[in-house]
C-alpha cells in the first residue's frame, strides 16, 4: 500500500503555491495536513503528478476574527482552531463540532480548509460552514473569488474549485446574539465518519438544521419557528427529501430516522441555549 510517484514542491509562499498550481494544472494537488489525501494516495485511489505542500506557509496559518466572520487560513490546523481562545464565544457551533472530527491525533495535523476542499459528505467542518452560511475564499493567479458554502461544495468529494485555485481561507460567520447553536453526530465508534451529523441554529423566530452524511453533501433547511407535531412533520419531510443511502454501516432508512429523532433533540438543545 504505497503511493504512486509524484513530484513534490514545498511552497514557501501563497504566491508560489498558486503559481505552481497554475503551471501544473489538473495534475497537481494541494497537500496541507494530508489526513484525507494521503490515505487515498496510499490506496492509489488518486495519482496526482505533483503535490504542492502549503503546510509551511506561515502567513496562511491564522485564525482572524473580523466583524461578522472568523477567517481561517489554508494551513491552519484543526487543533489550532480548537485551541483558539475565542472559539466558544465566536463560533460555538464549531466548539461543539470539533471534538467529533477524527481524533486528537488527526486534528493535530488536519487543516480546516483541507477538510472543506476534500468535501466528504459526512465531514463536520463543511456541514458547519453550510449551516452557518459561511464562505470559501479561492485564489489563483487570476485573483480571488469568494463562494458561499452552498456554491462551493457541489457533491460527493466535489467542489466548484477550479484546478488552478487553492482554498485560501474559510470564513465562518460569528455567533449572533439571541441565537442558539448545537451540534451532534451519530457514529459507531469515537472518531468515525458520521453516519449522520447534525448542526442546528435557533433564533427567536427561525430554525435552521444542517445534515451531513445523508445526501451527497451537507444539506440545510430553514423553517419559521416550529414546535411539537409541526416540527416532527417538518423533520420527516426534510428526511424524506434527503432520501439517504445504504452502506455497510447503516441503511438509508436508519439515516432518515436519525434525522427525525436526533434532529428533534438537537433543535430543542439549540433553542435552550439561545443566549
Amino acid at each position, binding site marked *: 500500500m504505497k*503511493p504512486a510517484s509524484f513530484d513534490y514542491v514545498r511552497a514557501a509562499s501563497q504566491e508560489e503555491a498558486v503559481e505552481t498550481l497554475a503551471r501544473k494544472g489538473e495534475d497537481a494537488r494541494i497537500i496541507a495536513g494530508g489526513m484525507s489525501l494521503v490515505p487515498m494516495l496510499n490506496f492509489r485511489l488518486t495519482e496526482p503528478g505533483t503535490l504542492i505542500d502549503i503546510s509551511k506557509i506561515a502567513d496562511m496559518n491564522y485564525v482572524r476574527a473580523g466583524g461578522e466572520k472568523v477567517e481561517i487560513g489554508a494551513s491552519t490546523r484543526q487543533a489550532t482552531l480548537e485551541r483558539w481562545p475565542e472559539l466558544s464565544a465566536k463560533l460555538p457551533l464549531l466548539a461543539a463540532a470539533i471534538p467529533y472530527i477524527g481524533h486528537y491525533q488527526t486534528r493535530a495535523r488536519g487543516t480546516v480548509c483541507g477538510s472543506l476542499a476534500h468535501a466528504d459528505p459526512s465531514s463536520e467542518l463543511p456541514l458547519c460552514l453550510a449551516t452557518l452560511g459561511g464562505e470559501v475564499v479561492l485564489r489563483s493567479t487570476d485573483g480571488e473569488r469568494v463562494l458561499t458554502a452552498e456554491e462551493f461544495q457541489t457533491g460527493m468529494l466535489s467542489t466548484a474549485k477550479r484546478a488552478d485555485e487553492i482554498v485560501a481561507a474559510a470564513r465562518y460567520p460569528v455567533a449572533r446574539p439571541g441565537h442558539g447553536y448545537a451540534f451532534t453526530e451519530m457514529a459507531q465508534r469515537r472518531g468515525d465518519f458520521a453516519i449522520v451529523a447534525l448542526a442546528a441554529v435557533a433564533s427567536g423566530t427561525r430554525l435552521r438544521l444542517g445534515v451531513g452524511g445523508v445526501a451527497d453533501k451537507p444539506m440545510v433547511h430553514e423553517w419559521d419557528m416550529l414546535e411539537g407535531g409541526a416540527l416532527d412533520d417538518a423533520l420527516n419531510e426534510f428526511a424524506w427529501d434527503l432520501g439517504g443511502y445504504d452502506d455497510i454501516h447503516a441503511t438509508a432508512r436508519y439515516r432518515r430516522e436519525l434525522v427525525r429523532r436526533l434532529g428533534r433533540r438537537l433543535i430543542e438543545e439549540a433553542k435552550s441555549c439561545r443566549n
Partner: protein
Amino acid sequence: MPQLNRDVRHPVSLTLNGKKVQGHAEPRMLLSDFLTHEIGITSCHVGCEHGVCGACTVLIDGNVSRACLTFAVQADGAAVDTAESLADDEGELSALQQAFKKHHGLQCGYCTPGILMSITAYLKEKPKPTEDELRDMLSGHLCRCTGYVGMVRAVLDYCENSGAGAKAE
C-alpha cells in the same frame, strides 16, 4: 523551494530524538518507511497505512503525527521524536514507561510506542485528564491485545504521582 522530482532520491535531514540524521527518500516515500528502512529505528510501527490505527505515531516539531500519512520530504529539517527518546541514555525507563510496566499496559507492544508519543504530547497540554478525556484521546489508537485497561490505569497513575500535574500540586 525547488521542485523535488519523482523517482529521484533526495537528501532528507532530521533531528531525530535530538541527534542529526540524514538519509535519502523519493518524494513518495512515507516517513514511516524512511524511519524504519532508511534510518533504521525500530519504534515506528506500521499497522494500517491509512491513518486509523496510530501505531506509527511520532512527534514532528512537537506535534503528534501519523508517520504513515507524512512523506519523508515533508519532515526534512524537522525535529522528529519517537519512543526511543523517552528512556534516559542508560536505558532507565521514564516514569510513564514504568507506569505502563507496572499496570501491564502493553502485551505484544506493537501499538505501544505510538501510544506513548500521543500521551507525551497530550499531557503537555493537559497534565491531569479525566479518565473520559484520556479515553477520548486514546481512541486515536487501536490496541488489539490489552483492552486498554492497563494503559488507562498507567496514565492516570502517572498523572497522579509523577507527571507535571502531580508536581504542580
